[in-house]
């Protein structure tokens, strides 16, 4: 039997063994599901947060309370309008969309003018009246989100004329949910705004107090601050003699910068969301590369430790050489890695096909980008060199360890070392051709991940080819060294060798 046939037999056993494990199936299914959930859950939580109750104790005469009420009503209607736009994008046929054009652009920030237009158009009531006739068959009904905050009356046992600090202290049992403020939800108080008697928007003498148990919850505080800042600025303009119309026009004014890039010749240089994918997609691919390699490299480590600890290795090495055995394991586990990768892509595509809306469109754009660029051959190349390097190091590590505990102590520093490029993601993303990214890209261990990220920024072909050749040479060197270590260490018993012994095993012909 040829060496290749023996390598194939070992590879086949590795593949079959791992493909039958529960972990393999879990990894294939769980990772894309978790990835999708990780994207959806925060959005779902944000959209489905229950309305929170708050009270306003306005000792200054009621103007602040009225301004807060207006801000809450505006916030609720802006959310209804945003939901309407999302609904239109997902459920209306293109020819019906122009009917909603008075409501401002399909995406982006909703301005005071958009809100005014929405109200003039008829608001939520109008939307609920006309949308059923416009939406595609089978579309769900348009349901605007409810208010995020509900102002409730100040509880009767609170002396609203007391000193601001005393009011806050008296509200403590309500804020701590020891007492309710209403019989129906929201029954518990999440915040209290106390406006001191002398408070004046134009010349504030004392600060407005915001009382809450949850000091990390900024939503209401931010909303009120923005609303009152706007109200104060408008009051100041009016004091300068400006008309309300002029003040509103100033408040509605927005200035934005349109992004351009010299690399975007065809579309006149204008940068769209699609173009930003150029940065995001390669990063995603680099992460995918890293994850798929690490998920399976660990299997190699555990496998060799099992074969060593139950002395199976000696039987196997009477049939196959250490090098054939190692090659078979590398090949079989690479097969597992590629199967997992393939499954992730399939599950991802299935989710996409059954999905709809702007996010899905963006994902299609990302796929087009991947298919049109050098990404697939680059990914394949970097997978091979990255896998060869990391997997053979894991195999070498397994050949000197007797137990998982022993391996763990050596593995932790190694994983940190291998994760280094991901700690440098931000500076590399901001300046993909800067000193950090260029330098780290030349370190063979990191080249596959870093160059994958940098590919979209058109690094010079000399750099791509030379760094590719360097990392390939490096991975072959590591493979050679680990094969020698494996051969000389795998039959040893007793304590793991010291570093100097490892070096000797690699460098001398025979242990």
């Amino acid at each position, binding site marked *: *039997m040829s060496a290749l046939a*023996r390598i194939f*037999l*070992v590879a086949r*056993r590795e593949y079959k*063994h791992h493909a*039958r*494990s529960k972990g393999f199936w879990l990894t294939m299914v769980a990772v894309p599901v978790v990835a999708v959930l990780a994207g959806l859950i925060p959005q779902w939580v944000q959209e489905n947060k229950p309305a929170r109750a708050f009270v306003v104790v306005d000792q200054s005469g009621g103007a602040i309370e009225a301004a807060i009420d207006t801000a809450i009503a505006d916030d609720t209607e802006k959310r209804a309008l945003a939901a309407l736009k999302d609904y239109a994008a997902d459920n209306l046929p293109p020819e019906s969309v122009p009917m909603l054009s008075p409501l401002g652009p399909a995406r982006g920030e909703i301005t005071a003018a958009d809100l005014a237009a929405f109200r003039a158009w008829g608001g939520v009531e109008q939307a609920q009246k006309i949308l059923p006739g416009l939406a595609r068959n089978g579309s769900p009904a348009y349901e605007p989100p409810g208010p995020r905050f509900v102002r409730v009356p100040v509880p009767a046992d609170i002396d609203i004329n007391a000193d601001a600090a005393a009011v806050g202290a008296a509200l403590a049992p309500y804020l701590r949910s020891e007492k309710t403020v209403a019989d129906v939800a929201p029954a518990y108080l999440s915040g209290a705004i106390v406006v001191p008697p002398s408070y004046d928007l134009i010349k504030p003498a004392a600060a407005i107090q915001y009382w809450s148990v949850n000091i990390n919850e900024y939503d209401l505080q931010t909303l009120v601050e923005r609303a009152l800042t706007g109200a104060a600025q408008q009051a100041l303009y009016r004091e300068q003699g400006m008309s309300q119309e002029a003040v509103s026009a100033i408040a509605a004014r927005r200035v934005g910068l349109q992004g351009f890039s010299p690399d975007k010749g065809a579309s006149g240089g204008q940068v769209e969301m699609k173009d930003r994918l150029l940065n995001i997609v390669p990063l995603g691919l680099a992460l995918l590369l890293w994850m798929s390699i690490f998920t399976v490299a660990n299997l190699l480590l555990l496998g060799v430790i*099992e074969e060593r*600890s*139950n*002395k*199976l290795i*000696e*039987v*196997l*090495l*009477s*049939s*196959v*050489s250490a090098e054939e055995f190692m090659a078979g394991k590398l090949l079989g586990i690479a097969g597992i890695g590629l199967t997992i990768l393939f499954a992730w892509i399939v599950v991802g595509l299935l989710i996409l096909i059954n999905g709809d809306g702007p996010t899905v469109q963006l994902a299609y754009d990302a796929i087009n980008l991947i298919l049109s660029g050098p990404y697939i051959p680059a990914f394949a190349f970097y997978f091979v060199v990255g896998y060869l390097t990391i997997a053979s190091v894991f195999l070498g590590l397994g050949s000197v360890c007797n137990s998982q505990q022993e391996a763990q102590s050596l593995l932790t520093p190694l994983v940190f070392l291998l994760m280094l490029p991901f700690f440098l993601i931000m500076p590399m993303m901001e300046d993909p051709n800067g000193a950090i990214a260029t330098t780290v890209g030349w370190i063979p261990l990191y080249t596959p991940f870093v160059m994958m990220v940098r590919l979209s920024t058109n690094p010079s072909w000399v750099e791509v080819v030379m760094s590719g050749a360097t990392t390939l040479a490096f991975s072959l060197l590591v493979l050679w060294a680990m094969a020698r270590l494996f051969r000389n260490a795998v*039959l040893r*018993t*007793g304590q793991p060798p010291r570093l100097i012994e490892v070096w000797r095993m690699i460098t001398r012909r*025979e*242990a």
Partner: protein
Amino acid sequence: MSLADSAVAFNGVSKHYGDFRAVEDLTFAVPKGAIYGFLGPNGAGKTTSLRMMLGMIRPTAGTISLLGSDSAMGVRERVGYLPEERGLYRRMTPVETIVYLARLKGMDPALAKKRALDLLERFGLAAFGNAKIETLSKGMAQKVQILGTIAHGPDLVILDEPFSGLDPVNQQVLEELIDDLRAEGRTVLFSTHVMQHAERLCDRLVLIARGKLAFEGTLGTARALMPRIIRLKTTALTAALADLPGVASVSDEDAAHGRYELKLKDGQEGEALLKACFARGIALESFDMSEPALHDIFVSLVGDGAREADARKDAKS
């Protein structure tokens, strides 16, 4: 014995790890078709020698020929090896395990499957053929591994302590298996601590101590190395026994009970002594002239070495 007649030939083989001499100048040959005992105390260098034989480690000096080839890897498909410490993939079944091991030795998949099923049937494991190894008893798993060693029909079977861990019934089964292999004309080389097995099975044996050859030859030759001891019970006095022809010395430690051990001079036989006793009117209650057991030969040849070897083993690890 020529190389062509030997299944294994060690010629001046040494293995050194730094200053440590695991095996030193070992020369012996295993005839084809023989059952060959590979004996020695713990740490004598048996496993190192077997690993060198199989090409897993290279000797520091000397040459090894296996089935006429100087490369063990070149003839690995004709060799079956069962190491001393053994284990299997816990999640594989006995059938899968035997098929896998046989296929690694170049056996056709369908033939390997058939052979696995036949062997499991013959050794009473048919009902467990598709159970996971982790659910089997230790003895069963060991049997599976032994079957995996011989499934591909090797010309040379190397068994390192094959009897350890087996109950007496399964030890008997293994002895029968080794006999069967002999009947099929295969060569079996096995190491063991249990001298009775070697005594019953071996045509020839090699004894190594402290990495060096202590003895090589047949059991009969080994016995001839030992002085003949006659144990008898009599009312005669020590002096009368010492005066008998052919007696080298008399041990009378248990004379109070009338028991004596007589060491014979080289070349003297027990029958002549018995005749002399009758001729001189020495009344005998018992006369035991049984041959020395391999155990005694082992202790006599490597007794000091065995004690020393434990210390060497510690130094090696």
